């Protein structure tokens, strides 16, 4: 190696280091800033009482419940359709017209801004189906919104399972379904779970679509037919209407911690149940 290429090597390495460090620094700064402003607000009272006087005082118990229920509902609705479609695309079809239509639709859906989903949800679920502003309307809307991501990541995960696993399974007398269940799913489940975690993140973070479908009720919801605002919507309202910067940061901090917890728990579960035997 001559001096020139060695210098180039050093410059490239330094360049990549600086870029990586910058990105990490920015991310850490944002998280640290919000936690710094927000953590002092969080206490048991804040987590367990509902907002009062439009959120100027009181806690965020109902937005927490709203967020969790919309998210759980959306993921539960979207998962079977998303993962099922991914398996169809990856295993059951060799690129016919149906496949191309599905692909085209999912790709188009992925590029649509969430407010459009919100508008659709408002017209279709809230108005036409008469579900009103409710956790159910919100969950259904967000479910459609996360479908493209879910299909894309799951399909990728299924396709990345080595072809030999399938061949081995077939060669040992496996049927298609047995092969998918016993040889493909165990290897793909980690990638599929990652897609699910991504989707959960989108649900938790969504505001525009949910304002129009789940509403912004502050009272603790009693069923999925009740309107409820999510934490992200609550945060948005507090800031935009200048109600309480303090509580806004508290909400943001809880949101960050929640996303963090979801990631940790999900990864721990994947490692516990999936990664054995490897």
């Amino acid at each position: 190696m001559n001096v020139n290429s060695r210098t180039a090597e050093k410059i490239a390495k330094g360049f990549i280091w600086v870029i990586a460090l910058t990105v990490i620094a920015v991310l850490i700064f944002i998280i640290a800033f919000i936690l710094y402003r927000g953590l002092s607000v969080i206490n048991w009272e804040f987590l367990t009482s509902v907002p009062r006087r439009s959120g100027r005082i009181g806690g965020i118990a109902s937005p927490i419940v709203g967020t969790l229920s919309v998210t759980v509902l959306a993921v539960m609705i979207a998962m079977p359709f998303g993962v099922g479609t991914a398996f169809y695309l990856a295993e059951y079809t060799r690129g016919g017209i149906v496949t191309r239509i599905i692909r085209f639709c999912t790709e188009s859906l992925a590029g649509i801004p969430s407010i459009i989903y919100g508008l659709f949800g408002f017209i279709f679920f809230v108005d036409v189906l008469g579900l009103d502003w409710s956790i159910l309307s919100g969950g259904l809307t967000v479910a459609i919104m996360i479908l493209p991501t879910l299909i894309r990541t799951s399909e990728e995960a299924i396709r990345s399972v080595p072809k030999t696993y399938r061949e081995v399974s077939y060669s040992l007398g496996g049927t298609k379904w047995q092969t998918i269940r016993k040889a493909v799913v165990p290897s793909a489940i980690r990638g599929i779970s990652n897609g699910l975690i991504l989707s959960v993140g989108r649900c938790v973070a969504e505001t525009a679509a949910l304002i129009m479908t789940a509403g912004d009720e502050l009272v603790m919801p009693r069923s999925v037919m009740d309107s409820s605002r999510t934490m992200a919507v609550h945060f948005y309202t507090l800031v935009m209407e200048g109600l309480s910067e303090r509580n806004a940061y508290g909400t943001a901090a809880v949101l960050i911690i929640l996303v963090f917890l979801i990631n940790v728990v999900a990864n721990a579960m994947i490692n516990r149940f999936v990664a054995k035997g490897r």
Partner: protein
Amino acid sequence: MANKISINKLNFYYGEKLAIENLNLKIPANEIMSIIGPANSGITTLLRTMNRLCDLTPDVKIEGDVLLDGQSIFSEHSSVTELRRRVGIVFDVPTPLPMSIFDNVSYGPRLARKRNKKPLSEIVEKALTEAALWDEVKDRLKIPAMSLSGGQQQRLCLARVLALEPEVVLLDRPCSGLDPISTAKIEESLVELKKKFTIIISPHNTQQAARISDRVAFMLMGKLIEEGANIEVFSTPKDQRTNDYIRGRFG
């Protein structure tokens, strides 16, 4: 002796490309048949046709017939999964599934739902013993199969096929990339196993074919050039091309 497999006028196409041309071959039961030939001779295709794994490849066309015990394997009445249980295959690279040794070996029987007949542990022990791997792994059946050495993995793949108690075992260059000791172990098991099974192997060199086979077939560019008893083919080949190949003039 009865023919276990008869291949009649087999033509095999990948799309437009002819990979096997008018191939006729009779394979007797309980013998080791070696199919030798340079790369791209259609040997892998032939092996994968015998248990219809070629079905997985898109756009293939098959003419002619392959009979297993006199029954066509392509007939609409025969089940593909049943065929693959009777005709097992070991691939050219070790292909353990990402699960434990035990789960790998019991994979086939579990799918076949034979668990009531005999406990899985017995099946696994028997298969691993036949593949000369039992002594090395009997205390650690729960560890991931991927953590075994390459030679052990390949014997595991053989055991996985044997666990289904097949009638025919196909081996597609099973010893390529293996060390001489592992190769010797696999060869020893094969010679032992032919008492129970019919073995069709694409050996990784002509010496291996000479060591273990009863009969030898030579394929070149998708055609069967010559077939006969081991000693005949190696000492007095009838075709000049066979002679050139086994003397190492090409291939």
